[in-house]
C-alpha cells in the first residue's frame, strides 16, 4: 500500500467539556476520499486538525509524512477550502486569490498569473474583476476553491465544497476534483450528502459523534441508504413548474413547497439528480439557483449503523 497522505493516531479534540473528535486512528491514502457524516459528526474538526487550524487535545496527525501543528512550511503542499465564507467583500475575486497565493511564496507577478489560471479552472475568470460582495453563493464557493488550488497543492482539503451550488456548478466542481486526483493530487472532501461524495469517489470515511464509524467502499453504505428516501431542496425561478416536471417520474415520492423552493423526496437520487442537471443545463424549467439536501436520510443510516 502507498504511504498514507493523512495519518491520525488516537486523535482527540475537546472544546471544553464537549468532545469534537474522539480517539480517531485512521489512514487516508492517495486519490479522492470522501468524509461523510451528519452535521456535528466531527468532519470539520478533523479537517481543521489536518490543516493546522486546531491543536489536537490528544494524539497526533501527520500529513504527507510530516507533523501538522506548528509546521507552516507543510502548507506549501496543502490547499484548504473552508466551509464558511472568508472574504473581504470589497475585494475582487482576482485580488483576493492573488493576495492569498502570495502567502504561498509566489512572487507578485507569478501570484497574479497563478490566480488567473485558478479562476479560469473554476470558470470564474469572467467575474475575476468583480467585487466578491456581488458574487452568488456558487461563485463564492468557486472562488474559495480557486484559492485552494492556485498553488497546485499535493493535498486538497475541501470542507463542504458543493454547499449552495447550482447543479451545473456542482458538476464542474466534481469534474475538477476528479481531474486533479487523476493528475496525482490527493483530495479529502467532506459532505453530509452521500450522493455528492459518491459522484467523486468510492472511498469514504463515515463519521458520527466524533468517531470514525466506517471506512471503505461507498457501495455498501449505498445499499443501506437506498432504503431511506433522499430529500432534496431546490430553489428555482419557477418551483411549481419544476415540481410538475419532476413529479411525473415514479422515483419522486413526495413534494412540498417553500418560499421560492420545492422540497422533494426521491428513492433514486442518481436518476433524480441526472434529470435535474439536465433541466438546469437546458434551461427548460427556468433558472435553478440552489440545490441542497438535508441530512435526514443519512442520519437514518447512522441510526441504523449505531444501533
Amino acid at each position, binding site marked *: 500500500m502507498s504511504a498514507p497522505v493523512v495519518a491520525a493516531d488516537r486523535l482527540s479534540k475537546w472544546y471544553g467539556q464537549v468532545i469534537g473528535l474522539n480517539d480517531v486512528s485512521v489512514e487516508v491514502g492517495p486519490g479522492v476520499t470522501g468524509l461523510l457524516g451528519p452535521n456535528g459528526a466531527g468532519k470539520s474538526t478533523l479537517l481543521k486538525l489536518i490543516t493546522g487550524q486546531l491543536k489536537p487535545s490528544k494524539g497526533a496527525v501527520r500529513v504527507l509524512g510530516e507533523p501538522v501543528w*506548528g509546521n507552516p512550511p507543510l502548507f506549501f503542499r496543502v490547499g484548504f477550502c473552508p466551509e464558511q465564507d472568508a*472574504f473581504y467583500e470589497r475585494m475582487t475575486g482576482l485580488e483576493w486569490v492573488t493576495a492569498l497565493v502570495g*502567502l504561498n511564496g509566489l*512572487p507578485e507577478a507569478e501570484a497574479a498569473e497563478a490566480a488567473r*489560471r485558478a479562476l479560469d479552472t473554476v470558470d470564474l475568470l469572467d467575474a475575476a474583476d468583480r467585487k466578491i460582495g456581488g458574487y452568488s453563493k456558487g461563485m463564492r464557493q468557486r472562488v474559495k476553491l480557486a484559492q485552494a488550488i492556485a498553488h497546485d497543492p499535493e493535498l486538497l482539503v475541501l470542507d463542504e465544497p458543493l454547499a449552495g451550488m447550482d447543479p451545473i456548478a456542482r458538476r464542474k466542481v466534481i469534474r475538477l476534483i476528479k481531474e486533479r486526483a487523476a493528475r496525482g493530487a490527493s483530495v479529502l472532501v467532506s459532505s453530509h450528502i452521500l450522493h455528492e461524495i459518491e459522484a467523486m469517489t468510492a472511498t469514504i470515511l463515515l463519521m458520527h459523534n466524533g468517531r470514525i464509524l466506517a471506512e471503505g467502499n461507498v457501495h455498501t453504505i449505498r445499499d443501506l441508504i437506498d432504503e431511506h428516501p433522499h430529500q432534496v431542496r431546490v430553489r428555482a425561478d419557477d418551483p411549481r413548474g419544476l415540481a410538475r416536471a419532476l413529479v411525473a417520474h415514479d422515483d419522486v415520492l413526495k413534494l412540498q413547497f417553500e418560499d421560492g423552493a420545492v422540497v422533494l423526496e426521491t428513492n433514486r437520487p442518481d436518476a433524480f439528480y441526472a434529470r435535474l442537471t439536465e433541466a438546469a443545463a437546458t434551461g427548460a424549467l427556468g433558472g435553478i439557483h440552489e440545490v441542497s439536501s438535508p441530512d435526514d436520510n443519512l442520519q437514518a443510516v447512522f441510526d441504523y449503523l449505531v444501533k
Partner: protein
Amino acid sequence: MPIHDQSYRRYGGRRNEPGSAWLVIAAAGIRTLLGRKLFLAVMLAAWGQFFVRAVMFYLSANFPSMNVLAPSAETFRQFFDFQEIFVLFVTVYVGSGLIANDRRSNALQIYLSKPLSRAEYVAGKLGVLAFFLLMVTLAPALALLVLEAMFSASLDFLLGNVFLLPAITLYAVMEVSLASFTMLALSSLSTSARYTAMLYAGALFFTAAVFGILRGATGSSMLAWLSLRANVEQIGDVIFRVPPRFESPWGLSLLVVAALIGLSVLVLERRVRGVEVVT
C-alpha cells in the same frame, strides 16, 4: 502544428523562503492604505510640523537675526510632543481594523491554512501599523536632523548633540511599539474596527483623566504612571535628557510600558487563531 497542454500546470518558479510571508501581509496592508485619499491627507497633515520646522531651521541657518529659531536638543523632544496627536490618529485609523476586519470576515482560518505562522501573521500586521507610525515620528525627526546639517553646512550641531540620533530612534521605537502592540491586541479582541478605535481612544483619555483628577486632588504627579500617555512622556524626557515632567519614577513608567507590551503579546497569542474555540 504542436498542440500545447492547456490544462492546469504545476508552478515551477521560485518561491519565497518560509518565514517571509509576513512581508506579503505588510506590503498588501501598506498598499491598501496608500490608496485611500483620506489617509494620505492625514499623513500629509502629520508632516506639517516637519515643514514648519524645516523653514525655521533654514531661516536660523541663513539669517543671523533669526537665531532665536535655531534648534536645540529640546526642539526634537517638542517635535515628538506635537506629533502625539498624529500618532493617535494614525494608530486608530490604521490599526483598529487590522485584525478585527480579518476576524469579522473569517479570513484568519484561510490565512493560517497557508504557509504562515501566527507569529508571522502578527508581524505582518504589526509591520503595517509600525511603518506608518514610524513615518510620522522617526522619519520626519531624522529628516530634520539631516536638514539641519544641510542648511547650516556643518556637523557642529550633530556632534554637539551626539546622543540625539539614538535618542530619536529609541523614543520613536518605544512610542511606536507601545501603540502598535496595544492597538493590535485590542483589534484582536473584537470584530468591529469602530469599537476597537473607541476602546483605544477611550483607554488613552480615561487613564489621562484619572491621572488628572488624582493630580488635582493630591497636588502631586506621583501617580503619572496611571496614564498611558504620561508614561511615554516621562520616559521620553529621560531619553532626551530634559528634566522629567512628572514626579513619579521613570523606571516605573518603563515597567508599565513593558508590562502593557507583554500583556498585548499574551492577548495576541491567545486571540490570533484560525478557529476560535469557545469553551
